[in-house]
């Protein structure tokens, strides 16, 4: 069965903390979070509140995912060129 929004919402209620960081604080910390993931892998241990926010907040989570991809591609020197990206954007 596909997860209904109600099921997702109940999980979010279960995971709710008394204090959660805001989207601004998440944006402030997400670059550190991404680089910790890439370098040491212990981002969730060092920045658990970022992980908690990303699990609750879809817009921040989508941005995190793209940033993570970008940072990995850059670290591996595999970032596509502007030309390649512009061609893909035209599709």
């Amino acid at each position, binding site marked *: *069965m596909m*997860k*209904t*929004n*109600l*099921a*997702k*919402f*109940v*999980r*979010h*209620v*279960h995971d*709710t903390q*008394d204090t*959660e960081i*805001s*989207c*601004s604080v998440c*944006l*402030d910390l*997400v*670059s*550190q979070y*991404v*680089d910790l993931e890439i370098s040491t892998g212990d981002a969730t241990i060092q920045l658990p509140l970022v992980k908690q926010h990303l699990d*609750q*907040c*879809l*817009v921040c989570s*989508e*941005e995190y995912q*793209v*940033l993570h*991809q*970008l*940072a990995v591609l*850059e670290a591996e020197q595999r*970032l*596509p060129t*502007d030309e390649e*990206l*512009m061609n*893909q*954007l*035209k*599709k």
Partner: protein
Amino acid sequence: MDKPRSNQEWFEALSNQDVQQGEALEEIRRLLLRAALYTLVTHLSDLQEMSEEERLALAEECAQEALMAVLARLGDFRGDSKFTTWAYKFGVNIALSRARRWRWKQVSLDDLADDDGTLNWFQRDERFQTADSEQPVRQKEVVEVIREVLRTQLTPRQRQTLKLIAFDDVPMDVVVQRLDSNRNAVYKLLHDARLKIKQQLVRRGYDLAEVMDLFQ
């Protein structure tokens, strides 16, 4: 290829008004354009019906806006990430927000309005199909608690925001725009709502892990 700048080199080059700043500005602008292009490419489904020219123009606008954000926030850079990762996040944030708003710009949220606290929309999501005969009964109990909190403890604005984001899949940025609000305020509305429901369930003796399992 030139050796990439260190964090310190980026920070100094962008902070000092000299020849170096011009070069660094041009370089970071190029990197932000690439981040914006990359972001839009990963979310092409949001950009349907946008022409090629408009897409390229949007990427340029996002890069420019991100450059402004980077310069305005330069003092916040603490060096706890790579400078480029720190800068890219502004490009990603701006490009995705713009893409989401584009996708939803034709949709009236009035059609998704909360029906005056009758909570019919909430009932609609109640699709419990399961072989376990005990489960639907217990699910219904939990749903009743949630509905009661929605009805009696949330403000209309809180209820409306929760409905749009958690149940109608409207991106938070779109709700923020229509309410003329900001992400932090809307996130707080949602957090307060979740917390009230959680507290009510706990107060009534529910084990939250079991509650979650009921619905998964």
